[in-house]
């Protein structure tokens, strides 16, 4: 951790790479269907001729920019640009609809920078001890973590709990369509070849979130987003004050993001959802999450960007990639001849530390770059005529969904799911529980089946599911998340009765 490594990261070439990576990643991440994984996979060949540290800086900057870029589409179009930005739609789009899209974009930028810095500093200072967390998580802990994420359905379905749970179950059923991962049975396809590949998460996200908005937009002559009479620039000062006021939420969500980023397979979407759930649980009574609450954006965006640094911890220390983009970075390192593992920090210290400092610099550069891009993205979306915006977004959904698996079937499923989502959404079955079920379903199933098998084999099924300390902690948090809102509501009702 020498100062020389910091200076190595500060060379003009590395600075240009970091800036280019952040901008390219942000632009790619903002397009529905294009993910950080795709951006990295496309750009990784150009890093083969660079020295390893510069290559890593470029890849890290693209990754962190793409995770942040997902917030633009989530806020301005109600379509998560990347799965990490799912929970950003909950409050981001309502803010944009009421004319606060510029503020929401600035909040997302501040939060992403804070989250990115916490993740990168954790990587710099605590990588070896934190990497042990990844090893402490077994299948049962993953199962309970996904159940914790699903408990968010309860708070997303105020007044419609049964519908929310039914929607969550429907989403989990959708996640089982196709070839079973554990035993290769073909499930719920009803003989249709179209369904054998299953429902892609990103296509389903685009369909469930974006298509209903387009269907509603064309039906009335109302403006797509409220436009202020005096078009303001991105409200940096206001966003900074809100972020400073919510510093506990920001730090807590960043730590959650870092810790979940460490867990292989969990990723930014789970981190964003868990952080959102925690922000809502600990929120003040006057805060209306789901209706345009700034703290919702701060929680999600700080958590998902913190997973970048967190995900690099098991990747570099253990050689276990935390997320698909980490796997691409790991592959790039292998091509460069760099061996990851516990000795990497001592044997290849100059590469690792230059990269971490580069990641920190890229995260800081995201602030001006993100605010500048956000300003133009917001102004463009607000000013573009609805007649052009709707078909443009529609075309983007088609080409974006197609590009994931080069499949027309995916596009048709995306559209079908979108129309279904619109119809059921009109009668109280919201899209978010379905999406939660779809994303967390595979994690829950894999953890559940593996835990069940191990528990049965060892003759201690109860101990397997309920006897492990980390599981007990997650179960406790889940119960608190479920019970606390009910208790608070009951206490409020009792107070109101006493007053009247």
């Amino acid at each position, binding site marked *: 951790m020498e100062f020389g490594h910091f200076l190595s990261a500060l060379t003009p070439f590395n600075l240009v790479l970091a800036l280019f990576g952040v901008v390219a990643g942000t632009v790619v991440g903002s397009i529905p269907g294009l993910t950080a994984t*795709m951006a990295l996979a*496309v750009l990784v060949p150009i890093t083969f001729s660079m020295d390893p540290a510069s290559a890593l800086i470029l890849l890290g900057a693209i990754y962190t920019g793409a995770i942040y870029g997902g917030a633009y589409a989530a806020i301005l179009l109600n379509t998560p640009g990347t799965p990490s930005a799912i929970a950003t739609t909950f409050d981001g*789009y309502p803010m944009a609809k009421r004319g606060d899209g510029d503020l929401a974009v600035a909040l997302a930028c501040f939060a992403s920078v804070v989250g990115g810095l916490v993740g990168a500093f954790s990587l710099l200072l605590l990588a070896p001890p934190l990497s042990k967390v990844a090893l402490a998580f077994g299948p049962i802990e993953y199962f309970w973590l996904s159940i914790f994420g699903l408990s968010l359905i309860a708070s997303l379905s105020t007044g419609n709990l*049964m*519908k929310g*749970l*039914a929607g969550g*179950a*429907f989403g*989990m*059923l959708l996640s*089982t369509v196709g070839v*079973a991962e*554990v*035993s290769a*049975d073909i*499930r*719920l396809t009803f003989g249709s070849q179209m369904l054998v590949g299953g429902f892609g998460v990103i296509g389903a996200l685009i369909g469930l979130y974006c298509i*209903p*908005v*387009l*269907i*509603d937009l*064309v*039906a*009335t*002559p109302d403006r797509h987003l409220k436009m202020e009479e005096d078009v303001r620039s991105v409200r940096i000062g206001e966003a900074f004050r809100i972020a400073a006021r919510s510093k506990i939420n920001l730090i807590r969500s960043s730590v959650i993001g870092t810790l979940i980023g460490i867990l292989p397979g969990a990723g930014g979407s789970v981190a964003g959802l868990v952080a959102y759930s925690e922000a809502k649980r600990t929120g003040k009574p006057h805060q209306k999450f*789901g209706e345009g609450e700034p703290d919702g954006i701060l929680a999600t965006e700080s958590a998902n960007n913190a997973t970048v640094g967190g995900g690099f911890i098991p990747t570099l220390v253990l050689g276990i990639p935390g997320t698909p983009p980490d796997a691409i970075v790991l592959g790039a390192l292998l091509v460069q001849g760099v061996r990851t593992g516990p000795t990497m920090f001592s044997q290849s210290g100059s590469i690792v530390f230059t990269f971490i400092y580069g990641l920190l610099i890229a995260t800081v550069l995201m602030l001006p770059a993100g605010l500048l891009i956000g300003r133009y993205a917001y102004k463009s979306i607000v000013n573009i*005529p*609805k*007649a*052009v*915006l*709707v*078909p*443009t977004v*529609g075309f983007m959904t*088609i*080409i974006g969904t*197609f*590009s994931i698996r*080069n499949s*027309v079937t995916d*596009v*048709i499923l995306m*559209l079908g799911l979108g*129309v279904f989502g619109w*119809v*059921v*959404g*009109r*009668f*109280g*079955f*919201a899209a978010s529980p379905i999406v939660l079920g779809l994303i967390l*379903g595979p994690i829950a*199933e894999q953890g*559940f*089946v593996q835990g*069940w098998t191990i528990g049965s084999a060892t003759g201690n099924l109860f101990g397997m599911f309920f006897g492990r300390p980390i599981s007990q902690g997650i179960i406790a948090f889940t119960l608190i998340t479920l019970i606390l809102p009910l208790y608070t509501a009951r206490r409020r009702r009792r107070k109101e009765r006493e007053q009247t």
Partner: protein
Amino acid sequence: MPDHQRHPDGHIGSLVISALFVLMGIIALYDTTGYSDRDSQVFPRTVAIMMILTAGLSLITRFLHPSDSGGFGTGTWWRRVLLVVAMFAGCLAIPHIGFLASGAIAFAGGLIAAMHDRWTPITALLYAGCGAAVMIAFLALFRYVLHVPLP
């Protein structure tokens, strides 16, 4: 989230959708009987039962305590239908006429559906030109930069 207009049809619609979820749960439950491995059955079966129970409870609650929340709300139906049909038609045409031509079908349908102002020759030319520019830009990005094999 889309705004939910209050509408008397909301009660019946809510019952129908709840019943649909119950039906889908029963079909999924039946489907699980055909799996060869118990590991494949346990999760979808648990989830299907959960869906039947929760959607069933929602159905009973709505039946006993009717409410008027939900409904398709206001707005022009032909525009909604045109948008969806144009997008589906565009998708189905991709393997036959290629991405650009099928994209043009979807774009034109969306443009007509979303155009609430009066058409003038200038707006028609301008919007069609915008559409062509957007489609060509995205096609170039995906085909030549991202190397997506677009038909």
